[in-house]
């Protein structure tokens, strides 16, 4: 119980710090761009306005939340080390694994809040334009949150060995795009042979398959996320967390 209270305290602190950060207002950028896009979409897409507005909103929402999640995950641990706050925490009976779990939970909560705020704004905009809630909307947001969970935990891990926040963001960004090429990587692995096939198969094991969570693109088809998506996300988050824990345990604070 004490450990759970500790994790909750670290998570709550991390969450409130993130929400109070100026960069969190990034969702205002989303709102302005979405309104501008809705005017454009109305003119260009004619009878497909609802679809275009939905697709643009969901994609842009995910990218906005990704930008914030990466910034947050890349800077939170190095900043705590730089400001020596981490020494203060570890001078108390706080295990490193609980601290890391709390920080990760705080970041994920912030991403969830950001998606929820932007989702509400997006739905409001759709309502103003005379459209209802698009089918599979909640699943699309859930898929985005799972993707963000995996990439945030990976960015936490990278931030512990990279030299700067920018390099963490770049590495994680590359990982994000590579993760969306999973089905293409599988195709190439099946088409090629020898060493090439081996390289592609290794990439399939090392890079998480973000298409598994990409409900946005599957909307209209079977859009519900299956248990495999939740299991894989949990396993990848757990793997990245353990790798980050391995690094943070070796650091001298």
């Amino acid at each position: 119980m004490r450990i759970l209270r500790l994790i909750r305290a670290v998570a709550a602190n991390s969450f409130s710090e993130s929400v109070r950060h100026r960069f969190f207002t990034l969702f205002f950028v989303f709102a302005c761009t979405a309104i501008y896009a809705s005017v454009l979409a109305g003119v260009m897409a004619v009878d497909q306005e609802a679809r275009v507005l939905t697709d643009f909103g969901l994609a842009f929402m995910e990218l906005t939340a990704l930008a914030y999640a990466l910034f947050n995950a890349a800077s939170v641990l190095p900043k705590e080390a730089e400001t020596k706050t981490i020494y203060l925490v570890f001078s108390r009976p706080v295990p490193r694994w609980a601290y890391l779990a709390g920080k990760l939970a705080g970041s994920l909560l912030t991403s969830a809040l950001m998606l929820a705020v932007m989702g509400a704004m997006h739905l409001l905009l759709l309502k103003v334009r005379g459209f209802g809630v698009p089918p599979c909307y909640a699943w699309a947001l859930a898929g985005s949150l799972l993707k963000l969970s995996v990439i945030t935990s990976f960015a936490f891990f990278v931030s512990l060995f990279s030299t700067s926040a920018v390099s963490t963001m770049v590495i994680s960004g590359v990982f994000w795009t590579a993760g969306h090429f999973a089905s293409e990587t599988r195709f190439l692995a099946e088409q090629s042979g020898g060493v090439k096939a081996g390289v592609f198969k290794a990439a399939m094991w090392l890079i998480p398959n973000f298409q598994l969570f990409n409900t946005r693109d599957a909307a209209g088809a079977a859009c519900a996320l299956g248990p495999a998506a939740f299991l894989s996300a949990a396993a990848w988050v757990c793997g990245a967390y353990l790798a980050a824990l391995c690094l943070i345990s070796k650091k001298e604070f």
Partner: protein
Amino acid sequence: MSRFVLPAAALLAWSAGAAVSGSYYRSPFPPPSEIHTPADGAAGDMFALAFGARRLFADVWFIRLMQYYGTPEFCEHEEHGTDAHAHHHCGENGEGKYPEFLARSRHVLEIDPGFTMAALYAAGSLAFNMGRQAEAEELLHYALKYSPKEWKYLKVLAAIGYTKADDPAAVAAAIAPILKDPDCPVMLKQQAAFLNKKIGNYPAAAAIYADIAATSRDTAYVRNAERELEKLSRLPPVKRKSP
């Protein structure tokens, strides 16, 4: 020994994620070898794949297709008599060759094979406006490859068959079930209304025009539907009844 436990556990967890994903995930999208970018748009396609935004970029390609098809392809200049009255006739109502139409519409489906409305719009335009039934069938067969249970494609394929047999009543009957579907493009509704008018089924034509006027956001189609409704209302009451 204990220093290897954490890295081993991390690797194990990561591999478990890859194993679960690898055994359950089957891509619903066409393989990269099937994606043929017909015009300058390779960068867009790359973004579509890299950010998992296929639907969004398929929308962009569809808007580009509509712009391509909405741009008159040719203008004829005619002079009447000696009073130098000139008349410009530009290709309207989908007239023209539009050689890239099939490639562009197929590309929309290569990016998002679930974009039913785009497939219906493109197949309808090819078959009924441009008279290229073979290309329309090719497009629908491609769409059916990724959506084999899509009954609307089968209906349009049947309608194309009746078009070849020059049976407008059968064409109208074949596409009638699609008209109330939210995926039905307004162009197909207009085509159904026109066919019903042609075979003398004025009440059905009027109902479709009324639906276009009430639901479409495309002002050109709405204005045309209002005009047609007005013309139909001026018909003698005997003609307005079903044949």
